């Protein structure tokens, strides 16, 4: 196990260098002048552009630029935006909000999705099963921005149960509704995945054995059936958390949340190359680490899987 983890961590290095270079290449290859409109109504003065080009090493060849960027990055310096704000500060302002939103969404997914899946998986055909199947199909079919605006309009503006937009400090309570919206599609997948997994395993021989041993029903289901059915569901949840950590441009946009998704979106629009590269580099690392954790969790849940 230890050797496997070490190998996976070492694999992160080439992936890290490759992705950062690719992102750097893409961002700086963007067409258009990054200083257009930076100086109000008039074009920026030649002297200002010259200073900025010097400061951001824009006259160096691409590889030298990238090398300088990487060197700074390895020292923990994400660089600055054109207006002089530290990218590190931007990230540390936005990321806690994204993490809170991701955790709330994950909680909704896991709780509602798993419970709905267990109920329908155990009972089989019937009203409950149809209800969950239809409602999950509905959730999967509707894009997040529709769900988002619907929740915002109905619960925020008409009923007034929630604030239509989230305030600057984005507390846990304020993020409940956006979290639910963000979770909706994955929640439907979790429900269906759990339902299938339970329905498949409840006919398994080892469940029959547990009954034949005279184990009470709650142990047959709660211990023998659930533990086996949890394997694909937990894997899905782990991977999804990795995706949620990458921010949610649509949901953040609707509820005016200052998360990492919005930051990337704005930075791309404004051609803030340093910010885009910095954030995406961070997201790549988060995603890679999450994936590693999921793989390790998989081995914990299923003893038949061994990494040696």
């Amino acid at each position, binding site marked *: 196990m230890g050797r496997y983890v070490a190998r996976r961590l070492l694999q992160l290095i080439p992936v890290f260098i490759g992705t950062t270079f690719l992102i750097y290449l893409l961002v700086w290859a963007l067409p258009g002048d990054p200083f257009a409109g930076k100086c109000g109504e008039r074009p920026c003065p030649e002297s200002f552009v010259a200073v900025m080009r010097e400061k951001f090493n824009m006259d160096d060849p691409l590889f030298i630029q990238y090398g300088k960027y990487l060197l700074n990055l390895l020292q923990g310096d994400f660089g600055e935006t054109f207006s002089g704000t530290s990218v590190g500060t931007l990230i540390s302002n936005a990321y806690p909000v994204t993490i809170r939103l991701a955790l709330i969404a994950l909680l909704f997914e896991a709780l509602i999705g798993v419970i709905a899946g267990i109920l329908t998986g155990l009972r089989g055909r019937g009203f409950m099963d149809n209800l969950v199947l239809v409602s999950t199909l509905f959730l999967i079919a509707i894009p997040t921005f529709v769900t988002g605006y619907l929740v915002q309009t109905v619960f925020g503006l008409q009923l007034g149960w929630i604030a239509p937009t989230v305030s600057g400090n984005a507390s846990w309570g304020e993020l409940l509704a956006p979290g639910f919206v963000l979770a909706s599609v994955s929640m439907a997948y979790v429900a269906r995945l759990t339902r299938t997994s339970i329905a498949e395993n409840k006919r398994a021989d*080892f469940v*029959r054995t547990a009954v034949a*041993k*005279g184990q009470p029903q709650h142990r047959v289901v709660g211990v*023998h059936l659930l533990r*086996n059915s949890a394997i694909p569901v937990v894997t899905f949840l782990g991977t999804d958390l990795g995706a949620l950590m990458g921010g949610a441009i649509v949901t953040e946009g609707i509820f005016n949340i200052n998360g990492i998704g919005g930051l990337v979106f704005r930075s791309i629009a404004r051609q803030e190359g340093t910010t885009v590269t910095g954030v995406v580099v961070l997201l790549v690392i988060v995603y890679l680490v999450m994936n590693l954790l999921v793989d390790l969790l998989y081995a914990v849940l*299923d003893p038949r899987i061994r990494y040696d």
Partner: protein
Amino acid sequence: MSTEGHPAEPPNESPLQDPAAPAVVQQGAEPLLAVSGLHVEFRTREGVARVLNGVRYHVDAGETLAVLGESGSGKSVTANTVMGILEMPPAAITAGEIRFRGEDLLTATASRRREVRGEGIAMIFQDALSALNPVFTVGFQIEEQLRQRRGMSRRDARKRAIELLDLVRIPNAKGRVRQFPHEFSGGMRQRAMIAMSLALDPEVLIADEPTTALDVTVQAQIMDLLAEIQRERNMGMVLITHDLGVVAEVADRIAVMYAGRIVEEADVHSIYRQPGHPYTRALMDSMPRLDQRGQELNTIKGLPPSLTAIPKGCPFHPRCPMAIDLCREKDPELLPIAEGRVSACHRSDELMRDE
């Protein structure tokens, strides 16, 4: 998940036999486990399959009953019904009784049935790899019964689990108790399964083709082990098999099943000497024999009947070399043919006189 259940209707008289009468006259009172007039149907989209049609057998303490028959003859369904692990629906018990120490299990409450499972009647399944839970250690799966049912502490249960693994001769039981089923070889896994079934000291052990998934040398070891344990503990054992060689060695009595009914029951010596039913005889003839080396093996022509459309009369008549008109018309009753023997054949008298 409905594994509990009661007959759809109150047990009515079986058309074939009086459900109360034991199949073979025996000394003493109530047998340890007695199945009588058991009817089970599978209600599927394709129609109703009559899987069991009045099965009856019994087993006493210290006795091994072998249930013999082709695939689909209802051997396992009978066992699953006795254990109460039949999936209902699609299955439905339409008539019959299962008496364990005189108590009818089919009318017992769900919690009473659960008590009997493991402690009164335990079962060994055919494929230990799928029957054991892949995500728990072998030790855990033995210990959970001891802790749940006997209220043992974690440490005592572990100790007992090691003793049980020792008992079924698993080497290094102390280390293996912590291993998962997939870390065991096929034979060792079946031994672990046996250890698990013995955890609550059952009085009846049902072994559903316990050696089918194993290679021949291991088969013999497992059968010897089962026979030894059965003798030592004076358990009643129901051995479900289609292996005639296994039967001859360990069984006391044999019940032959065909199309969901018992067609013959007798003690092992007399049935081998002189089968009392054409189906039994055909089974015996299909065994490879040393004195017929190089010859083609005898087979039973045709296929077992479809359980959704069991032929009128004797269900074996389309394949029976001795069939007469009567066999196409009337289903033979299971009647005594000799001391302690019953057979369901119109021409069993001729069979018994033969040779």
